[in-house]
């Protein structure tokens, strides 16, 4: 075996241990359930009647959310694409907004709706609401996931080969270049972002529950809550996982089909779209602004003065420190572990096809089951120091979000210019020089983006973390949901501000890493 193959095998083994093994650990109780009651197992795996209708309605809601957030995200991305100055930094604001839990968006929009209704009634005017719960749930989910689709669409546009776009602009108006070149080329990646939102919406139970919208993910939880049988829960959620898995394959397909350019951040003039295009962009940006403003105003109003935010932060200092440590560790682990699948997916279609299911599977499994799998895997005498330690929540974050990091690194791998590395190999005196001076600086943006994304997602993780949190320790998200239960809206708002602040810091770190990488690259290249 060559050194390269041995290293890839080691990476694959690492991915198997960190990401796949907790999921495969669920096979034991599943097989046990199937062997004990095959008929019941078959009935769970192949839903009929009410359960089938519920799966269909949940998929329809997820599809509607994915379509709307995908379209709006593309509009926002088109408005930010090729913009210099401060607008270039706006993409990191999207990273900061991504981890704010959908539950907080729901609270903010419902509060707004209630106050508007009261205000209109007070003025003797008719209230536009109440809207049907499914419409409210759809809107809140769109708002919650809009930063994600906008961010991924911006990535898709930023990675387009500039020469192709500029060549298209010479042959006609910018609007046509956008329609005929940019959108078709970025389309697969944009659609993959929408598919990712479809999966996340399908698996989310918090917003539908709050709004009394029946959902399959909640039905899984209800059944698990009543029976506490992980094998049955796996089979119950199998149809959900199948739908999510198909969408996950769509995510990967989009990622693989997008033609990536060799540069994303150099100065380029923005496309000037026609009136309709500008109006569409403005509408999307207006929605994005409301996505930011409504929770921000609601959080600020509920949190009160900065002193109260500071006081709430001091009260939750231990949770904040623990959350940051966990999210940081998860980001480090995920970025390292994601290197192997990212590399494998970038290889031949044959190798990539082997890896696809392994990368898709983690997205399709409900969080609580990931937690059960982690306990089953790690709670063993020989590994006694792990379970019950602070490492476990980091492993939970890595298990759930390494696949996301793999996609970011895959995109980064594909946009790397091979000529740079080949030239570096020819001119280097020592073997390590091309890696240290060329490849590492080239990789820094991707690593930073992947790490920041996993950091942010882990900050907001709840379902798996609750199952494996070390006794005596809790995360900031756990604390927020704790306060939510008490109806302590000022404390929730204060800690929501802290959570968003931590995510902003992660985005800022990623931006600094990007800048440093660019400077390093410039120095090496000179």
């Amino acid at each position, binding site marked *: 075996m060559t050194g*390269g193959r041995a290293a*890839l095998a*080691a*990476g694959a083994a*690492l991915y198997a241990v960190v990401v796949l093994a907790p999921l495969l650990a669920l096979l034991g109780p599943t097989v046990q359930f199937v062997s004990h009651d095959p008929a019941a197992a078959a009935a769970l795996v192949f839903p009929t009647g*009410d359960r089938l209708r*519920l799966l269909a309605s949940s998929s329809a809601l997820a599809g509607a959310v994915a379509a709307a957030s995908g379209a709006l995200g593309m509009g926002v991305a088109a408005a930010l694409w090729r913009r210099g100055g401060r607008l270039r930094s706006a993409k990191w604001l999207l990273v900061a907004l991504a981890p704010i839990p959908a539950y907080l968006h729901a609270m903010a929009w419902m509060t707004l709706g209630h106050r508007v209704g009261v205000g209109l009634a007070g003025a003797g005017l008719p209230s536009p609401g109440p809207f049907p719960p499914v419409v409210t749930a759809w809107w809140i989910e769109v708002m919650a996931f809009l930063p994600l689709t906008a961010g991924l669409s911006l990535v898709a546009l930023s990675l387009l080969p500039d020469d192709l776009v500029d060549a298209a602009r010479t042959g006609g108006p910018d609007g046509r270049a956008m329609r005929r070149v940019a959108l078709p080329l970025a389309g697969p990646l944009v659609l993959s972002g929408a598919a990712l939102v479809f999966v996340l919406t399908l698996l989310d*139970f918090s917003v539908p*529950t*709050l709004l009394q919208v*029946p959902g399959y993910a909640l*039905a899984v*939880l*209800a*059944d698990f*809550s*009543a*029976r*506490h049988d*992980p094998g049955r829960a796996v089979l119950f959620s199998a149809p959900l996982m199948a739908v999510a898995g198909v969408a996950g394959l769509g995510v990967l397909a989009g990622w693989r089909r997008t033609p990536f350019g060799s540069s994303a951040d150099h100065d380029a003039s923005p496309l000037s779209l026609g009136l309709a295009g500008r109006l569409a962009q403005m509408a999307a940006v207006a929605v994005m602004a409301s996505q930011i403003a409504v929770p921000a105003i609601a959080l600020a109003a509920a949190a009160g003065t900065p002193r109260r935010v500071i006081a709430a932060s001091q009260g939750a200092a231990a949770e904040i420190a623990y959350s940051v440590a966990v999210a940081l560790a998860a980001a*480090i*682990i995920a970025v*390292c*572990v994601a*290197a*192997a699948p990212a*590399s*494998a997916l*970038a290889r*031949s279609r044959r190798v990539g096809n082997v890896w696809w299911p392994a990368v898709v599977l983690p997205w399709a499994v409900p969080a*609580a089951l990931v937690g*059960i799998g982690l306990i*089953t895997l790690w709670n063993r*005498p020989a590994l006694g120091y*792990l*379970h*019950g*330690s602070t*490492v476990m929540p*980091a492993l939970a974050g890595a298990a759930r979000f390494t696949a996301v990091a793999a996609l970011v*690194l895959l995109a980064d*791998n594909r946009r*790397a210019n*091979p000529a740079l*590395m*080949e030239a570096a190999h020819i001119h280097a005196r020592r073997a390590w020089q091309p*890696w240290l001076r060329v*490849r590492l600086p080239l990789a820094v943006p991707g690593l930073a983006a992947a790490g920041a994304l996993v950091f942010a997602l882990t900050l907001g993780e*709840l*379902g798996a973390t*609750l*199952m494996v949190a*070390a*006794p*005596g320790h809790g995360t900031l998200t756990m604390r927020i949901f*704790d306060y*939510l*239960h*008490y*109806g302590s809206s000022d404390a929730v708002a204060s800690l929501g501000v802290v959570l968003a602040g931590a995510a902003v810091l992660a985005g800022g770190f990623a931006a600094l890493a990007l800048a440093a990488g660019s400077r390093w690259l410039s120095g090496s290249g000179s």
Partner: protein
Amino acid sequence: MHNAVKSFGIRASTLGVLVVGAVLAACGPAASVSSPDGASAPGGGATESMTQTDTSALSNSDAREVVVYTSVDRNFSEPVFAAYEEVSGVKVLPVYDLEAAKTTGLVSRILAERPRPQADVWWNGEFAQTLELADAGALATYESPNAHGIPQAYRDPAGQWTGFGGRARVILVNTDLVAEGDEPDSIRDMVETPAPEMIGIASPVFGTAAAQAAALYAAWGAEEALAFYKAIADSGVQVLDGNGVVRDMVADGRLSWGLTDTDDACGALERGSPVKVVFPDQGPGEDGTLIVPNTVGLIDGAPHPDEGRALIDYLVAEQTTADLVEAGWFQVTLRPISTDNACLDAKNVRGMSVPLAEIGNQFSVAAEDLTGLFIAP
């Protein structure tokens, strides 16, 4: 694909192996949970006697800590743990459940950890999940001497758990929207009202609302209870995401009244909301309301069984019950205990007469029916 790109990924994988190893090695155990394997005997069958402040059995133990999994709201349980740490010198390492996890959290965790338990004590804010853990063999036998005076109906005959004070299901009424004298006085009023959209209950599939559903199944029979919930589902009564949401919507005036727990009701009263609390079904011949006792049990195979028993002794002691009444977590004491600052006077409230074990037997039956009715209609 480009060789350079591929090999970078490969080398990064190797680096990943090293970094992950370093991270795992660097993060030591947060709680030095000693392995119960081999040396520590499971608690089953051990009935011991310790008084509330008798922690002498702990003095020779190296492990001066106890791990407790609790579904009791953190703002009520955390001060109890802090007080116990002060009294005993034993470090309490809690894991709190969250309503957002829909009770799939800690019970599932305890069951998943059964081969090698991490927790010593399970302190539950209700009883149904405790009965489930006892049925699964996850709880050891321990009858605390401090449980004297607690009626046998609230103690496991096998000694696997002890009930020790708790809450009751109540109707919370918004006094701005419901005139005095027009308040509902029975849960059956939910299906006999002209404005059902102004009434709310928590989803009867989760938490204490699920326990109440199981109690109605046990008291009325499955057919009548299911018909009652079908009537609720058909009438337009709002089925909400927890008792706290019911409380907030009644307090805000978005609901005229709703069914919730006494601790939630007290929260609204303490905040000065325009609300009134009604204990339902207290008339002659009526069922009474569901009393939801807290329950506590020792985990079978607990890593720190002595510390676990000592903590249970502390929790079920009369003084702790009095403290929890004053804190607002308990409104029902189960035994005569003089307290101050009780939010509600529940001394004369009549509870349902159905034994907890029978309610426990109906729990999964009711959950399956009501999941079909409310979650997957």
